[in-house]
């Protein structure tokens, strides 16, 4: 291997040309084929039973997410100006090509079914905007009396009314959102304020905002990394070459994605993050070694220097890269495709970065010459050794206080485990935005006035038993459950089902007497009400709550929050009824985008934990095999485990919820932790062979590897701290957590791992016996 790498140095130009040609090919492919996948449904594993059922239910009942357009008039909405605005806006939204006319609901489109002594009356609330005080008053009264409208389309305080426009999947994009906003805002006046909210808006904005913010932040991150890298390596050449490795490996990775036609998912934006954090490591180690070597051997030829660098370091570079790649490949166990792709392509990127470090980097040095020798350290007092004083005293201190190190580590580990218990999963989209952002404020406003902007769909399935939901006993149980959920949770604002239609019809048929706002006792009565509703109301409405054979029911719960904790609370109450329904042969299922997001986050977390454990085991085995010693495997895994534990512990303490992005971050703990450990262990092994003194071996290792590790950590931490200034909270969390992981990895490697290594006597046992 060493021979091949050194041989390749003679073909430096060919190497460069080949790399550039492949890069050009990949750039071309990216230009041609790169596409972003923003449809969140595409992220879900389509073959998961919960998703299959939900998709089917969405199809049965035409469940779609709604955009909510709220019209507020502080003076009240029952005046001709507001009612006209409502009518005009309703009509305008019906004309949008992305929106089906029948999917727009407002007070203007709604039917008002009312009962009187002699009969029933099906009327629109208004068609022509009423002007006279008398007519306005009449409209107000009829709204107040209809509880299928009051509190749902008109707020209880009568200052806000909403238009709900349901849209299909894949419809939302920036242009559509802008047009909606423009249309809405165009109707604002001195008295009338208009707000736009709803899950499609939140989801869509998030899918657009995250990558957009990343695009803005990544160049700044790179500039900072460039500057810090320059300060540490003190050579423009070395800095450019190191970043070149990262740059080319990122292009190759995304190029390959484009070539094999894999779209860019939101999690894919994490790939450059990983490659930056991991890719610069090899460069720093290689250059750091090269510079030390050149300093010690002035006047050496560049080929000799590079050959020495490759001879000493090819092994740790390959080992770190392979173990890191294996760590990422373990993500293949995830059920979520974007995470699988993330794993494969990051692994590919890591391996490409390895090849670049061993082929491109030396070729560059051969072409452009050795980086300038560092002048800073030359004059330094080396304390009798060939390495730095700081490294010596640091190593001494650590070894001296090793019991303290172990003790502190143990405390940190315990604290982390305590913190991890506090960790929670959140599938909320809304909470990814700033508290004072428009989108959160609007949502809050609508939630204050209406049932809620988030929904859970509960699907009751009588498993093919026709007409099951015409049974009064079943509908009464449904009503009871609805009431239970609605009254015991503040966050549940509204519930809605077939039972509400039946209650309404029963009331209407009994001259609007409130005592008949209930489910009648006779099945025939229910069937006849349903028929009557079909004949007089809009049968499409019924299709949204019950299926054709009356053996499936869709119950909607509106929540004022899309926070996973709240969704789970509501589900917990519903679950109490599972047995009661089961006795009637009815199974309980859930559907809708809110529920899917909940399941999805659980899946990601579950998969992440599994793959984390698996990658730890694989890495332990790999390390043991590579170093032919199981103890090395165990010791080498320590920094990774500590990094992961602290990462989760801190999240628990700070209340940062696990979500797609933060869960994936544990991969970085593995990727980086293993790099540091391997470099350190390999150096220690080499140094141990040269000396009989444990402490001296540790000191030399600290001076070489330790220095490179610190440089690496500083560079990446500095770079990622930039993300703290991002406008998108998830990107801020990402920056903070990557920095934290880098920090704990390097501290863990240089302290506890060193102590364990020292204590274990590995590489010195035989020697001790011999002497």
């Amino acid at each position: 291997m060493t021979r091949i790498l050194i041989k390749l140095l003679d073909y430096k130009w060919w190497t460069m040309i080949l790399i550039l040609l492949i890069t050009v090919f990949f750039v071309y492919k990216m230009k041609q084929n790169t596409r972003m996948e923003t449809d969140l449904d595409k992220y879900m594993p389509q073959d998961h039973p919960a998703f299959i059922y939900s998709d089917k239910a969405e199809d049965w009942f035409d469940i779609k997410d709604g955009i909510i357009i709220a019209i507020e008039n502080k003076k009240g909405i029952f005046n001709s100006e507001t009612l006209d605005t409502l009518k005009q806006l309703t009509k305008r939204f019906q004309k949008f090509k992305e929106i089906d006319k029948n999917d727009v609901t407002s007070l203007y489109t709604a039917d008002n079914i009312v009962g009187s002594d002699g009969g029933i009356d099906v009327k629109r609330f208004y068609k022509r905007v009423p002007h006279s005080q008398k007519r306005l008053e009449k409209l107000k009264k009829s709204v107040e009396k209809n509880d299928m409208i009051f509190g749902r389309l008109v707020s209880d305080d009568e200052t806000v009314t909403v238009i709900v426009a349901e849209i299909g999947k894949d419809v939302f994009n920036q242009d559509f959102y802008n047009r909606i906003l423009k249309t809405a805002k165009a109707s604002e006046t001195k008295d009338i304020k208009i707000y736009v909210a709803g899950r499609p808006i939140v989801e869509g904005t998030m899918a657009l905002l995250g990558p957009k913010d990343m695009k803005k932040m990544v160049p700044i991150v790179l500039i900072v990394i460039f500057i810090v890298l320059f300060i540490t390596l003190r050579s423009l050449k070395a800095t450019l070459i190191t970043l070149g490795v990262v740059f080319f490996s990122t292009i190759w990775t995304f190029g390959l994605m484009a070539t094999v036609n894999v779209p860019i998912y939101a999690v894919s934006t994490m790939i450059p993050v990983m490659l930056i954090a991991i890719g610069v490591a090899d460069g720093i180690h290689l250059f750091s070694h090269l510079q030390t070597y050149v300093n010690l051997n002035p006047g050496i030829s560049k080929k000799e220097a590079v050959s020495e660098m490759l001879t000493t370091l090819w092994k740790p570079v390959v080992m770190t890269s392979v173990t890191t790649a294996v760590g990422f490949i373990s993500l293949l166990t995830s059920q979520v495709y974007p995470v699988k792709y993330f794993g494969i392509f990051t692994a590919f990127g890591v391996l490409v970065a390895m090849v670049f470090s061993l082929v491109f980097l030396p070729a560059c040095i051969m072409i452009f010459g050795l980086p300038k020798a560092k002048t800073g350290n030359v004059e330094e007092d080396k304390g009798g050794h060939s390495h730095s004083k700081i490294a010596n005293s640091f190593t001494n201190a650590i070894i001296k206080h090793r019991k303290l190190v172990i003790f502190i580590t143990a405390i940190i580990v315990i604290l982390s485990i305590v913190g991890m218990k506090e960790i929670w999963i959140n599938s909320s989209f809304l909470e990814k935005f700033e508290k004072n952002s428009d989108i959160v404020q609007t949502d809050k406003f609508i939630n204050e006035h209406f049932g809620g902007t988030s929904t859970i769909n509960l699907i009751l399935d009588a498993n093919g038993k026709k007409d099951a939901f015409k049974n009064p006993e079943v509908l009464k149980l449904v009503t009871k459950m609805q009431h239970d959920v609605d009254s015991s949770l503040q966050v549940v604002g509204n519930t809605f089902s077939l039972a509400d239609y039946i209650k309404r019809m029963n009331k209407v048929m009994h001259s609007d007497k409130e005592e008949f706002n209930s489910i009648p006792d006779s099945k025939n009565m229910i069937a006849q009400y349903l028929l009557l509703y079909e004949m007089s109301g809009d049968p499409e409405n019924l299709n949204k709550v019950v299926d054709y054979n009356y053996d499936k029911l869709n119950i909607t719960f509106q929540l004022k929050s899309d926070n996973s904790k709240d969704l789970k609370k509501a589900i917990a109450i519903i679950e109490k009824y599972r047995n009661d329904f089961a006795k009637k042969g009815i199974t309980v299922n859930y559907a809708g985008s809110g529920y899917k997001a909940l399941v999805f986050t659980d899946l990601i977390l579950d998969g992440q934990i599994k793959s984390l454990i698996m990658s730890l085991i694989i890495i332990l085995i790999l390390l043991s095999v590579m170093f032919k010693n199981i103890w090395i495997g165990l010791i080498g895994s320590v920094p990774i485990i500590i990094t992961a534990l602290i990462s989760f512990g801190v999240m628990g303490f700070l209340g940062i919820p696990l979500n797609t992005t933060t869960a994936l971050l544990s991969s970085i703990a593995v990727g980086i932790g293993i790099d540091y450990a391997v470099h350190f262990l390999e150096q220690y092994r080499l140094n141990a062979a040269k000396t009989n003194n444990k402490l001296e071996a540790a000191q030399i290792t600290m001076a070489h590897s330790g220095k490179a590790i610190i440089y690496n950590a500083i560079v990446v931490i500095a770079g990622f701290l930039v993300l703290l200034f991002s406008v998108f909270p998830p990107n801020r969390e990402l920056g903070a957590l990557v920095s934290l992981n880098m920090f704990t990895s390097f501290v863990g490697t240089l302290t506890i791992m060193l102590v364990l290594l020292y204590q274990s006597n590995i590489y010195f046992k035989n020697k001790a016996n011999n002497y």
Partner: protein
Amino acid sequence: MKTLKLTLVSAIIILISGFTSTAFAQSKLTAREIVDKAYNLPTGDDMTSNLTMTLINKNGDERVRKIKQFSRDFGKVEKKIMFFISPADVRNTSFMDWSYDDPGKSDDMWIYLPALKKVKRISSDSKSDYFMGSDFTYDDLGDRKVDDDTHKLLKEETIDGVKYYVIESTPKDPDYMYSKTITWIREDNFVGLKKEFYDEDGELLKVLHIKKVENIGGFLTRTQSEMDNVQKNHKTIIKLENVKYNTGIPASKFSERMMMRGI
């Protein structure tokens, strides 16, 4: 003959039943004249039939309703009464409709629910609504007047050896639910073959197929027709059986008392 309004019987007659087969060669009829002949065809003074309406949704689920219906033309008012035979849980639910010739006067409608044992008057202002969850709107079922649209003869077409006029009708009211309809009308007897309905955006919404036409007591009656909503993938099949004309249904048949009595 006057245009029939809203009532299902009349609807079926207009849509499904025949036209007077003036089989003489027609010379240069205008589009309006063709439509007028197709719309205004004599039927009997009264009619009795069993109607089976099958609704089929996109999943292939079906709702089948059997109805016994009676209708009679009283000159200025057209009265109709219908009784549900099945499904069993709505059996004997009845519906009565009096439709007036005077365009200013809206229909009188009553519903009787046997479980409630009460006749209730219904008033509704939604005429473009779909009839009982079917793909037919009340308008499709016969409430349309010849001069509500402007008609244009697109072409003449021969299908399976039969010559048809192909007529495009555009509503005068720009806010109407269809932007246009295209109708194939037999040249020899003015029986329709099919009709395409286009939505507000000019896209095909529904297609009506006349599947079967029978001569019953001298009246060409369309006994089977199918309306496909191609956008919603929903379909309605209407079949008429035991069709009888001019049996002399008494005026007292169309009363609240008869609604409550059932079939």
